[in-house]
C-alpha cells in the first residue's frame, strides 16, 4: 500500500496543557509524558482530536471527506464500519525552552532527541542531514556561539563548548520555521541525563484557585497546581496517509486534505486543554516526503 508522509513541526505560541489527569510527584495536574523517558509529549489521540476539530470547524461535522480522513464519528452508529485513512503520531519534544540567567531563554535539546528525529524522518522517507553532536559530561553545554562563556540553565551552571552546528540549525529551521539566526543564538545541546532532568523539572507549574463569587474568598479545597509546556516549546509529529477505505481517495489526496486544506490558509493548531483561556496554540510547519 502506498503511503504519503509528512513531518509537522509545532512551535508553541502559548502555553500547552495536554493533561495526563492523575497526580504524580505532588503536582495536581501534570502534563502528558512518555512512559520510559518522562519527556513531555502530546499523545497521538490528542493531536488527532485537534486536527479533527479544526477540520470540522472548517467543513462542518458531517462532511464526508472528514469521515474518510479521520474515520466515522465515534458517537455515530457507523463507527465500526472502517478506520480513518490518516495516521497521526504522538507530538514529540524537539526543543525545550529553559529559562537562563544569561539570556532571555535557551532552546535545549540532547543527542537522544536528535537521533530520534533522524530515525523518525527516515521512517517517513524524509531526508534530513546533520551530525548529532556528542555530549556526555553533565556539566557541558554545546552552543554555536562564537565566544564561550558559562551558561546558566534554571539554577545550574554549564561550561559551554562551541561547535559548528550549521547543518543541524538548517534542518531545525526547516522543521520549525524558526529563523536560523535565532536558533544559532539560542540552541543549546546538553547530555541526555541533564536533558531528562530539565524536561522533568524545568516545566512551568502554576497555582490556580477558584473564588466564591459571593464572599470573594477562595472556595474550599479549590487550590490546585497545574503543569504546562511553556510557550516557545517545539514539538513535531508524523502524519501518514493511506488511500481511503470508502471511495478510493488516493493517499496523496488524503494527506493534502490536512497539509493544504487545513494548514495552507491558517497554519495554526490548538492542542490540549484550557482552550478558552488561550492555551495550546501552535504554529504549524509542514515538511512533506519527496517520494
Amino acid at each position, binding site marked *: 500500500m502506498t503511503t504519503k508522509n509528512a513531518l509537522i513541526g509545532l512551535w508553541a505560541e502559548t502555553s500547552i496543557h495536554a493533561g495526563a489527569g492523575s497526580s*504524580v510527584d505532588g503536582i495536581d495536574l501534570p502534563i502528558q509524558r512518555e512512559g520510559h523517558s518522562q519527556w513531555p509529549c502530546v499523545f497521538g489521540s490528542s493531536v488527532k482530536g485537534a486536527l479533527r476539530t479544526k477540520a470540522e470547524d472548517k467543513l462542518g461535522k458531517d462532511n464526508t471527506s472528514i469521515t474518510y480522513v479521520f474515520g466515522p464519528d465515534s458517537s455515530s452508529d457507523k463507527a465500526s464500519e472502517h478506520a480513518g485513512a490518516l495516521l497521526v503520531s504522538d507530538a514529540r519534544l524537539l526543543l525545550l525552552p529553559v529559562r537562563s540567567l544569561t539570556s532571555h531563554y535557551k532552546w535545549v535539546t540532547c543527542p537522544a532527541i536528535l537521533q530520534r528525529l533522524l530515525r523518525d524522518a527516515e521512517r517517513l522517507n524524509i531526508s534530513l542531514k546533520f551530525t548529532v553532536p556528542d555530549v556526555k559530561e553533565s556539566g557541558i553545554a554545546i552552543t554555536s556561539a562564537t565566544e564561550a562563556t558559562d551558561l546558566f540553565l534554571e539554577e545550574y551552571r554549564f561550561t559551554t563548548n562551541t561547535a559548528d552546528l550549521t547543518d543541524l540549525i538548517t534542518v531545525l529551521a526547516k522543521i520549525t520555521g524558526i529563523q536560523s539566526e535565532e536558533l544559532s543564538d539560542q540552541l543549546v545541546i546538553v547530555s541526555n541525563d541533564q536533558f531528562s532532568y530539565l524536561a522533568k523539572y524545568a516545566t512551568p507549574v502554576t497555582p490556580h484557585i477558584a473564588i466564591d463569587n459571593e464572599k470573594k474568598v477562595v472556595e474550599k479545597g479549590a487550590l490546585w497546581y497545574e503543569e504546562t509546556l511553556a510557550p516557545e516549546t517545539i514539538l513535531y509529529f508524523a502524519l501518514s496517509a493511506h488511500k481511503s477505505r470508502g471511495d478510493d481517495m488516493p493517499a496523496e489526496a488524503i494527506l493534502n486534505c490536512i497539509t493544504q486544506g487545513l494548514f495552507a490558509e491558517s497554519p495554526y493548531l490548538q492542542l490540549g486543554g484550557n482552550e478558552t483561556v488561550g492555551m495550546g496554540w501552535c504554529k504549524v510547519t509542514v515538511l512533506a516526503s519527496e517520494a
Partner: protein
Amino acid sequence: MEFTIQQQRAKKALNAVQALRVTLNIEKQKEFISYANSLPAMIHMNGLGQAMAFYKMKGKEPGAYAELYNLVSDWLCRTGQPYQGKQDVLTGITQCDMHQYQLAQAETLVFMSWVKKFAKAFLAEEGQ
C-alpha cells in the same frame, strides 16, 4: 525481608504523619495538609534549595513548617539517600555537588507525594 524504595518512603511518611495526630493540634494539622500540598510545587518552581530555605525560615516556631522541614531533612540525610551523613538538608545542599542536588530534589518530590496523600488521609481537614 526486602522492601522497595517506594515502600520505605511510604513507611517513613506514614509513621511521621500518624505521629502528628498526637503532637499537632487540629489547627496545626490543617496547616500541615496545606503546606505539604504546596511544597512539591514550590520545589518544582524554585528548586529544592530555595524551597527548603523558605520552610526553614517559616519553621522557626514549632509547627507545620518545622515538621515538614525536619521530615524532608531526616529522609534525605538517612542511609542510602543523597545527603546521607549530613547534619540536615541545607548542609547537604551547600556541601554536595550538582548531581547530588538533582537527586535530592527528585527524591524529595516522590517522597512528598506520599506525605501529601497520608496527610490528607489521616489529619484533621477543614470543615471537620
